[in-house]
């Protein structure tokens, strides 16, 4: 076995390095081109927008004054609180829905209904009922991540291969063993896809929620900057939002890879 795995890993490693280097180089080229284009059109005064240098300088200022880190911290805190609560609620509910038919019949209509309502549309209601502090924002994020994750979890449970269930049963598994040794591991890939989508929608929702009502955060900062026609600050916030979203997605993706290494993949 050792010979086979090492060989496999060698091949995998080689493929990784040659396959990953090219995209990274391409990414860098694309990034440089975009900055160049941005610099070009602003320097030539084709559009009334701040150039890269100006935005970069504003970013330094905002970091130095401590305002950007503060905004990042409050946005992240909201997102992570709502997201973690949402996932923590979605996984057990998704399992119950997949496992017990009656639970599914009871809950599914509500889930489908709320999925059709954009989380942002809940904000006015949340503000009226929960006040304007943290609660309504965290709640909306909770809802956004809960809804995407619960559906994925329950899809995962109902699509577990029947023969795996039979195989476990004939080896002596009762319901409890079946659940935690077969259903849970077999649905992990689905759950992680749900977590990833959930994090994406949580992040999209927090920024929008802060635009509407907040005293801090990246969305709030943009809202403020808009009042003062402060374009560089808006740019800094936008870029920060993009970078943070990308980082969080990469972390979830890496976790997903680790936890589902056993899966057969097309590539």
């Amino acid at each position, binding site marked *: *076995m*050792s010979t*086979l*795995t090492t060989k*496999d890993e060698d091949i995998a490693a080689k493929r990784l390095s040659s396959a990953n280097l090219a995209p990274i180089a391409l990414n860098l080229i694309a990034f440089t081109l975009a900055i160049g284009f941005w610099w070009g059109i602003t320097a030539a005064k084709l559009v009334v927008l701040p150039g890269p240098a100006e935005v970069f300088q504003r970013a330094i200022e905002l970091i130095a004054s401590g305002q950007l880190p503060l905004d990042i911290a409050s946005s992240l805190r909201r997102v992570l609180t709502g997201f973690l609560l949402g996932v923590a609620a979605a996984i057990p509910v998704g399992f119950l829905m997949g496992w017990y038919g009656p639970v599914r019949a009871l809950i599914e209509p509500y889930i489908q209904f709320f999925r059709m309502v954009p989380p942002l549309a809940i904000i006015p209601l949340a503000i009226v009922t929960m006040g304007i502090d943290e609660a309504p924002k965290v709640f909306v994020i909770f809802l956004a991540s809960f809804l995407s994750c619960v559906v994925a979890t329950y899809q995962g449970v109902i699509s577990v*291969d029947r*023969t*795996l269930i*039979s*195989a*476990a*049963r*004939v*080896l*002596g*598994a009762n319901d409890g*063993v079946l659940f935690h*040794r*077969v259903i849970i*591991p*077999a649905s*992990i890939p689905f759950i992680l896809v749900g977590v990833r989508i959930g994090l994406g929608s949580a992040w999209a929702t927090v920024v929008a929620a802060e635009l509407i009502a907040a005293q801090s955060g990246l969305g709030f900062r943009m809202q403020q900057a808009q009042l003062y026609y402060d374009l560089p600050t808006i740019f800094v916030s936008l870029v920060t939002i993009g970078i943070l979203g990308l980082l969080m997605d990469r972390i979830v993706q890496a976790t997903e890879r680790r936890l589902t*290494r*056993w*899966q*057969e993949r097309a590539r």
Partner: protein
Amino acid sequence: MIEKPVQDADSGPKISFQNVTRRFGEGEASFLALDRLNLDVGDGEFVTVVGPSGCGKSTAMNIAAGLTDVSDGRVLVDGKPVDGPGPERGVIFQQYALFPWLTVRQNVEFGLRIKRMPAAERRRIADHFISLVGLKDFADALPKTLSGGMKQRCAIARAYAVNPTILLMDEPFGALDALTRVNMQDQLLDTWNRERRTVIFITHDVDEAVYLANRVIVMAARPGRLHKIIPVNLPYPRTEEMRLSPEFAEIRNQVWHAVYHQNTRTN
């Protein structure tokens, strides 16, 4: 090396199908998949089951495994009616049904873990059966890195590990190429010779059916029923010469006729 199944008059058959009937669907649209199947299999006997597609082979096996209910009749194992799966009946599925997130050894240990066997003993037993099927070098490999034949051998080791007295195999070698298939047949017989179990083995391959069996059970379709039982009076261990002998060819002819010319002869 026994010619006849060991079967004392007082101990009775190991497994006994009594008027086993299975109907799918309700009322007019209902379909009789299995019509009053009667069959006794002796302790330590190796029977193979052949018959046209849809004649109820898998249905009969799933009923014996406790994975499907009867509409009428019953299956007795050691004189006791079957009610759900049990550890004394091991099942090997055509689709291997290995848990993809577990290594070969963990798969083989699955049933032992359920029995709450101490880790050291579990490992000793697992390693014994992993060697028996020739997978020693792959004990720590994940199923996705194994070939079809290796996966099926792992499934056999997993079934053997919980020490079942009966093995139910549903076209276990159906997905394998001809060469691997012949190897697997020899390995299976070899394993069966060393650790004698009662085996019911479903196959589409007439050659395979004759090569492995004490008796070949031929079934007929619409409705699924027992058609003919053909004894194979060749000694074990079976060899390649035997496979090419006139005696073998004669039995093979009989089985072939029973399967492919069910309407032209007898009944």
